[in-house]
């Protein structure tokens, strides 16, 4: 417990430095990751993180000792070479991008592992700390390492902040950006370089696989909450910071646990929460919308069936068997709908068991529903091509979202055919907020 207290009050200088580094790293990965995801370069980040490894080893051969900055520069160059290989393979062969990424990722990583085991064989090799670049070990970083990483991360964030609009424009519509004279090829290179730099500085803290995940997960999570690029950037950055700080913090408390996996786990939790709970784009919201729509459609089908059975005759009770035969629905669906109609005061049990009648409110609502349905039918037959733009095409059951003004235009036609159910003008039209919920 006292460990936790020491951690959150940042009493330990080394912890302070490491947490600050983790926060900056998370922020950089979050904002760059936003563009990596929007430009569909998420897997390229993965490939570059893997491709960076032989660069670290070669840097060791050149320098001959553990030199953090040299390792990262080697990693950066190797990562860019890996990305370049992907571009070349795609441009000059029939191999598609996903296969090219797989090929480059595996071969560079294989080369990196071979080189690093060769280095470990050397007498001084295990002091090089190369394994931290594969699995990540935030705690093993010394102050100067963290400062180096932090400066790189801050530079990345600054570049993205200045160029956010142009990078967004590039991701949305590269052709348009080019048409107004932006050097899109160079912007793409710059984005690639930022992704690579981000992957490389994440290596010592989070390891190869985890650093690639940090370029994707926070951005993907942020996308659930917003439809605005700026908010997405901020959210993704915040998610990155939280993942970095919490993950590294837990790892500092429990020295047995590596920081990299913990950071990604925290990000994963944020992602799952976003996936489920985000309004509008989240799974729960989508499920709720489908459920409400289903219930509304079912109720309206019931009202229409009742109206049509009663049409042209005097009011009477309707047997459930009659209603069941009227439409293709199950007994359960019918019972559910009847119970709901009854709760809403639109229908009530009749004199006999399994018989139902419409309440006065129900009669009005049923007429209104039927009217809207027939108008919509007519609309589809006669005007769909002209007015299709006024209809929300996303709705599964468009007959229930016909807008008010279109309905008015069609009424006259139905009157002429004698098929317009009598209904006072005060009745709200279906889809414009009637009493149904």
């Amino acid at each position, binding site marked *: 417990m006292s460990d936790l207290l020491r951690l959150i009050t940042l009493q330990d200088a080394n912890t302070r430095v490491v947490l600050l580094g983790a926060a900056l790293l998370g922020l950089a990965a979050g904002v760059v990751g936003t563009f990596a995801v929007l430009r569909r370069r998420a897997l390229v980040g993965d490939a570059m993180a893997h491709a960076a490894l032989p660069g670290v080893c070669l840097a060791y051969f050149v320098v001959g000792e553990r030199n953090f900055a040299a390792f990262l520069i080697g990693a950066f160059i190797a990562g860019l070479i890996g990305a370049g290989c992907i571009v070349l393979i795609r441009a000059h062969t029939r191999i598609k991008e996903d296969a090219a990424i797989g090929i480059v990722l595996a071969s560079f990583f294989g080369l990196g592992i071979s080189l690093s085991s060769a280095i470990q064989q050397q007498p001084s090799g295990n002091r090089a700390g190369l394994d931290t670049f594969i699995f990540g070990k935030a705690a093993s970083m010394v102050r100067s390492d963290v400062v180096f990483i932090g400066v790189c991360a801050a530079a990345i964030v600054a570049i993205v902040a200045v160029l956010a609009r142009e990078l967004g424009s590039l991701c*949305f519509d590269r052709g*348009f950006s080019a048409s107004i004279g932006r050097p899109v090829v160079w912007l793409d290179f710059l984005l690639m370089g930022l992704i690579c730099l981000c992957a490389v500085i994440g290596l010592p803290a989070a390891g190869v696989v985890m650093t690639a995940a940090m370029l994707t997960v926070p951005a993907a999570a942020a996308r659930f909450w917003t*439809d605005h690029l700026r908010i997405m950037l901020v959210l993704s950055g915040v998610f990155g910071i939280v993942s970095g700080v919490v993950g590294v913090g837990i790892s500092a408390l429990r020295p047995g646990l590596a920081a990299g996996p913990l950071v990604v786990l925290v990000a994963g939790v944020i992602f799952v929460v976003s996936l489920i709970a985000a309004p509008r784009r989240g799974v729960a919201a989508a499920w709720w919308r489908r459920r409400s729509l289903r219930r509304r459609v079912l109720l309206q089908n019931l009202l229409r069936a009742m109206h049509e059975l009663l049409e042209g005759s005097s009011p009477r009770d309707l047997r459930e068997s009659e209603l069941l035969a009227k439409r293709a629905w199950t007994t359960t669906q019918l019972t559910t709908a009847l119970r709901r109609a009854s709760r809403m005061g639109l229908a009530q049990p009749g004199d006999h068991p399994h018989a139902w009648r419409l309440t006065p409110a129900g009669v009005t609502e049923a007429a209104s529903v039927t009217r809207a349905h027939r108008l919509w039918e007519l609309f589809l037959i006669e005007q769909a091509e002209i007015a299709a733009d006024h209809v929300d095409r996303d709705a599964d059951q468009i007959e229930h979202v016909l807008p008010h003004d279109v309905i008015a235009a069609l009424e006259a036609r139905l009157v002429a055919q004698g098929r317009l159910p009598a209904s006072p003008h005060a009745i709200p039209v279906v889809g414009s907020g009637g009493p149904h919920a």
Partner: protein
Amino acid sequence: MTVAQATETAVEVHDVTVAYHRKPVLWDVDVLLPAGHLIAIVGPNGAGKSTLLKAILGLVPLASGKVEIFGRPLRKARSLVGYVPQRESVDWDFPIDALGVALMGRYGRLGWVRRPGKADREAALTSLAKVGMADYADRQISRLSGGQQQRVFLARALAQDATLYLMDEPFAGVDAATERAIVDVLRELREQGKTVIAVHHDLQTVPEYFDHVMLLNMRLVASGAVQDVFTRENLHKTYGGRLTVLEEAAEALRRV
């Protein structure tokens, strides 16, 4: 090629050849497109219509030849050019709303870092209003219908306040209401003396919507005023013996 009266030339395409993967898509296209007209580029699939637009915009490398816009090389004339790409060319789930897309039309004059000001926002909103999309300004673009998305693209080009507009299949897959809205905008642009060059795939509406036509099938077949050039013979040369297309063309010719 006949240009009835001596008008200013909006675009000069001079001996342009474009090749993708060593396979030529455009061969020695040489044409003058007059200013102040609504110009349709017509031809079968794979005829290089979009490629020609991209060549004019400098988006594809030219294997040979050159393009001039109002007598100037492209890089000195960019601010005069507005562009409406094919709707399918972008990801409509991108996190941006309709106003955001229209504002992109101002980026060219804003430069790299200057943020859009009040005047830019007003210009973007006015453009949206011109295509009947003002009520949808703050709607995320994936929640727009195909026709509405096309109109937002058009609004972005209008916000560029260009002199020459290049449009890649602006009428593709849109509903009738959008088609009318686009036609109205095109006519208004012509009244303002602007030039529109549009890739168009519906032969029947060529005489109605455009006054100048360029027939293309990897090579230039013909270019000129619709009544002079849009003939059965030229269409036959452009499309070969494709029956359905020729029937459409015959239908269109009856209406000229």
